[in-house]
């Protein structure tokens, strides 16, 4: 594992909003074909970091690299084309389009025609167990299904790196396990790299090979799940009031 080059490099990223420091000099790597997690209490800056990586806003300082390319401050659509697919913590379905059309939009930029995109979209719906919902309007989906739709759309863009922002929230334990299995299978089959923000520890511990812990916008720890759960700094600020 140590010989594998990092696919994503976050280097000294800082970001503040109106003087409030949301991210302070955060650095970490995600190795190619790895599954990494970003954890931390609410307000730790996890989603802000995702938004910086995905280009929603540029960092005040620091760099984001995908493979060889410096993607710092690029537009979101360019970053998507560069190979990063992301989901939104607060889901953003295209409410008036059907589930199938939602995913087709995502599949279009890798496809020549709408028919091809639709074809590949069906595959992703099946993968996320949404195929029975294909003709429904996204507005009518339940929250867990909307979370799955987020994942299906992000996957349909054909990313090298998948950013998942709390996609297991609201899923039942058995559904979480199925999602974990799906993601792991994807990584094994397609060589996808995954970075996830997650509060569902069941999923974090089952999936991730590497964990970065944020607290008040700073990285306070990182390592394998085994080392993280024993790190006193993590236990004190984050896991102290959590059931693992």
């Amino acid at each position, binding site marked *: 594992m140590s010989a594998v080059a990092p696919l994503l490099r976050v280097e000294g990223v800082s970001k503040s909003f109106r003087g409030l420091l949301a991210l302070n000099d955060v650095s970490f790597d995600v190795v190619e074909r790895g599954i990494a997690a970003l954890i931390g209490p609410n307000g730790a800056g996890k989603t802000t970091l995702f938004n910086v990586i995905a280009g929603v806003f540029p960092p005040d300082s620091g760099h984001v690299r995908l493979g060889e390319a410096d993607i710092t401050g690029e537009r979101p659509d360019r970053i*998507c084309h560069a190979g990063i697919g992301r989901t939104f913590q607060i889901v953003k379905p295209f409410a008036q389009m059907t589930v199938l059309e939602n995913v087709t939009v995502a599949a279009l930029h890798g496809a020549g025609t709408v028919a091809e995109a639709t074809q590949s979209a069906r595959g992703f719906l099946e993968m996320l167990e949404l195929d029975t919902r294909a003709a429904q309007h996204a507005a009518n989906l339940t929250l867990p299904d909307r979370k799955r739709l987020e994942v299906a759309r992000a996957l349909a863009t054909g990313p090298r790196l998948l950013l998942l922002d709390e996609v297991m929230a609201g899923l039942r334990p058995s559904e979480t396990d199925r999602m974990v299995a799906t993601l792991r299978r994807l990584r094994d089959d397609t060589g996808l790299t995954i970075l996830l923000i997650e509060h569902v520890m069941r999923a974090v511990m089952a999936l991730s090979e590497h964990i970065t812990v944020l607290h008040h916008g700073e990285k306070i720890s990182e390592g394998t799940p085994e080392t993280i759960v024993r790190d006193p700094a993590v236990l004190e600020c984050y896991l102290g009031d959590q059931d693992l």
Partner: protein
Amino acid sequence: MTAVRRFFGPLSPAGLWLGGAFLLLLLLLPWWGGSYIMTVATTVFYLALVGQSWNLMLGFAGLLSIGHALFVGIGAYTAAYLFAAVGLPPAVGVLPAIGLAVLMGLLIGYLGFRFAIGGVYFALLTIAFAEFVRVVIDHVSWLGATEGFFLKVSEADRHGIDLANLRGAPEMYYYLIMALALGALVLCRYLLRSRLGYYWQAIRDDAGAAEALGVNVLRYKMYAVAISSGMAGVAGVFYAFYQNSLFPEIVFNIERSIEATLGSIVGGVGTLFGPIFGTFILTPLGEIVTEAIDLLKHWHVIDPETKLDGLKLLIWGFIVVLIVLFKPKGLWPWVCVRLRLTRPEAEG
């Protein structure tokens, strides 16, 4: 028939038969309707074309324009001027007319989207430009200024068929605008099912998500404005040669822009048949109201001296309020379900 069905999508057999019968009725209109009904029908198709263009922006891409008269007016003045000044037939003049309308659309779009002016503020920008161009033309003497710009029509013109110069009998105008409106419908159907349509709807529903999925939001919004203003420009050329007189106060009046929105709002914003369906309800209704008032005046139920000019607008306004209250998605989706024009699970 299968090709038609594939194109117009999930129409039920009842929808196909009803639609077909209605179309046949309209095709044969010159044989059963008088000149008055044909005038009304011509207006209906003209407004359907403008409405289709407006609906493309708001209904498909989520961009609210309340200045659509601007694009219509630019198309009208361009083709009319080129015809009167250098004798360029409108069949050719339609190209520069589209070109200028599109340029104006792109200018407004760029200003709006580049500086992230969204929603209502973008709508205000479209109104502002329409007003601005109206005031400019008010002062341009070679466009007739406030006195109006006129195209010559001879009595002989009223009978032949000269499509290149848009001179001919009322039937010619009727069939032409019918073809244009139906052409716009077909074009919109095609666009909606293309990459453009998918991206527009995604941008309409959530621009942030669309961007994250690789959609260049600025570019696809610009495409929407360009195609919409181009369609409105074509409608403008027809308007110029059908009316033969252009006044800035009338052409660029905000009433024209609002008129362009009403059919779609009544029929259903974002639906394909909504704009044309809505105008088929509103325009005849407006005519009926006008006729009814005239009759009441004739029978002295109402004092003939009473001024009731605003009544039609008042009634339209009332209808729009009812629609917004009770059928906010428009009448077309409701009619589709009620008359089973489409198969279940599908939309017009």
